[in-house]
């Protein structure tokens, strides 16, 4: 009798465990159900890493006051059967790891925003091609598709939809500090790296750190210098292995990168934005959002300039890195691909792009039927939009390199800046990594 009781207990426990495990795997079909009016209810999960939902300067601002919440409310009102579940997620590496693991298990989102180019194409196997969802007309009003296509051409097979543009990455400088050092960086714009160093050295004489960079500013400065030296087709040759990173011209770029640190002209610190606003730095880097923020915080004290050319014989002069740095992506395991693509179309519509600009959360846009100047009085915005459209703005080189190559570059570049690896060794290592990637392809 006792034995039977134990057996019953054991079987009950096993059933409980089995039921729990079954429950763990039973969430896939819950995103679609039939509503009371017989219309299928659609639940779209949007992992949001692109739209603001927190204002660092105004913590009292509620979530409903941000553009994305209002856009979702408008969409849900127009489509009563659709519910958009906006879940805030971090961007960059954290998002990639989360997206990768969730996608392998096929329980990731229907929609998210990933960094464009190679970063998002790494996950191509989980992404729904967008070509069939966007007509030629719809596609033509959005610029920057090349950042989302597998061959980086404007009309290639697109795995995402341009989300927004970073504009052109610029250098912001403190006018007062530069004036005290006797420099007008616009009138006396450095023509090459040596002149740039000379300018920074003058600022240093005022006991101010001349240039503040982020830990990952390799992507903003020397990587741009490499790109402007070889041009876009040259970047493609580097990736394909027909030319080498250890080309003496490119090695010189890395030597320059080392020189900036060796002469203590630079600090690499993720708090450079705050330090610049606190006037502890002469100069720093920034995308359009940073530039406008600096302008808001510092008023007339801040000036802007493009990153100086590395040398007079570069192939692209007076440009900067930038472009469409992020893209909407729809997962191919989503049960509501069409509805999700429709939501993306809604966000990219003329009306919504205008709403986004009016909300102040977007300054420049990737749609060509909206003129930002009609809605924003800030003259700096016009400058930013004009710069973004200039052909000298080079699409982020790291978005073109294979992800593994970028990872290797980012890991090793700090050895060059700290003098633990020579520029030649660094470039040789990058060539080796590139070759091994090509070999294993």
């Amino acid at each position, binding site marked *: 009798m006792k034995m039977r009781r*134990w057996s019953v207990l*054991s079987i009950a426990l*096993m059933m409980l*465990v089995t039921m729990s495990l079954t429950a763990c795997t039973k969430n896939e079909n819950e995103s679609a159900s039939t509503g009371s009016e017989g219309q299928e209810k659609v639940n779209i999960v949007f992992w949001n890493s692109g739209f603001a939902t927190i204002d660092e300067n105004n913590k009292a601002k509620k979530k409903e006051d941000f553009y994305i919440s209002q856009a979702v409310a408008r969409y849900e009102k127009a489509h009563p059967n659709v519910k958009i579940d906006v879940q805030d997620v971090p961007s960059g590496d954290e998002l990639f790891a989360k997206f*990768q693991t969730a*996608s392998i298990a096929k329980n990731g989102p229907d929609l998210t925003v990933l960094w464009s180019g190679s970063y998002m194409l790494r996950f191509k196997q989980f992404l729904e091609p967008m070509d069939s969802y966007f007509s030629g007309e719809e596609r033509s009003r959005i610029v920057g598709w090349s950042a989302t296509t597998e061959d980086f051409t404007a009309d290639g097979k697109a795995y995402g939809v341009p989300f927004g543009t970073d504009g052109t990455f610029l250098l912001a400088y403190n006018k007062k500090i530069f004036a005290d050092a006797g420099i007008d960086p616009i009138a006396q714009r450095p023509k090459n790296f040596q002149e740039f160093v000379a300018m920074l050295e003058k600022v240093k004489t005022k006991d101010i750190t001349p240039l503040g960079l982020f830990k990952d500013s390799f992507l903003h400065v020397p990587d741009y210098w490499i790109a402007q030296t070889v041009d876009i087709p040259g970047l493609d040759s580097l990736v394909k292995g027909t030319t080498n990173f250890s080309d003496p011209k490119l090695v010189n770029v890395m030597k320059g990168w080392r020189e900036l640190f060796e002469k203590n002209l630079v600090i690499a610190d993720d*708090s450079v934005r705050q330090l610049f606003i606190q006037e502890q730095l002469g100069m720093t880097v920034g995308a359009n959002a940073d530039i406008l923020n600096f302008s808001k915080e510092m008023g007339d004290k801040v000036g802007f300039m493009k990153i100086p050319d590395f040398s007079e014989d570069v192939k692209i002069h007076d440009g900067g890195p930038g472009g469409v740095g992020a893209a909407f992506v729809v997962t191919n395991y989503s049960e509501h691909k069409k509805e999700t693509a429709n939501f993306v179309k809604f966000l990219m519509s003329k009306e919504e792009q205008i709403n986004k600009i009016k909300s102040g959360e977007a300054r420049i846009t990737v749609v060509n039927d909206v003129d930002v100047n009609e809605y924003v009085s800030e003259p700096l915005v016009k400058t930013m939009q004009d710069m973004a459209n200039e052909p000298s703005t080079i699409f982020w080189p790291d978005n073109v390199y294979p992800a593994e190559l970028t990872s290797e570059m980012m*890991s090793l570049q*700090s050895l060059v800046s700290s003098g633990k690896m020579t520029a030649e060794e660094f470039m040789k290592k990058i060539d080796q990594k590139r070759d091994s990637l090509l070999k294993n392809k």
Partner: protein
Amino acid sequence: MGLKQERWVGLFSLLPAFLLLAVFVGYPMFNTFFHSFTEWDGVTSTYVGWDNFKTILSNGDLPLMLRNNLIFLLSVPGILFISLTVSVLLHEEVPGWRLFRSVYYLPAILSSVVIGFLAKSMFTNKGIVNTLLENAGLGAFTTDWLNTVPTEFMILILCFYWQTLGQGTLIFLSGLSSISNELFDAAKIDGANWRQRLMYIVIPSLYPAIFYFTIVNVIYVFVGLFGLVYSITGGGPGYETTPIDYMIYIQAFRSGNMGYASALSVFLFFIVMFITWIQLKISKRLEQ
């Protein structure tokens, strides 16, 4: 109940636990072992035999990763000593023990990432450490703490110690409370001083706790420092502060080489197994 019946009851009682272990530990382990012999992107895998292991041994990264793990490993006796000292001082109720007893466990409940970001903000170029040094007229000692290898290790180990001190102290305090007061009284009557009581009563009595603490932390420095490395140094500059567990993350989630990352995991598994086996051997010999 007969012996046979009892055996069945025992087996059935353990079954749910075994089932859970098989699903949540056994399957991922088997999966990792299997994929260590493949080139795997998370969805499709191709069998490549021992290639991943050959690459680990030949690509030149292994000595650096092992060096980094060894540095962390060598830091374990330090935290053992500090925890032991603090617990003895608390047990002996030195002045201020009440306050310290109420706060010493606080760092242990913080996540590694919180501790890491806190340390990072303190040691940045313009962080509080450099600012304090400058204000104290010690500007010559300011340095780029987070871009110099020895100081980066120092910060990582400092955070590891800070985080582990509570756990160690708690373990040793509970061990100390089990030692009979009569033993201490007798030793005092016999004229044993503080050091002698520590060496001949406290440490031998705490031997199982010391052994447990050492094993747990040796394993921890191989598989648990990810959070600190991720939030403080990011494994850099270069791979200078990258231990094996952080390289697994880089390979799996930055480079997408899930097969290679699985092989590194298997490699790490055997390293930890080997070190734990050595510790068990030493422990048995000491017991004898």
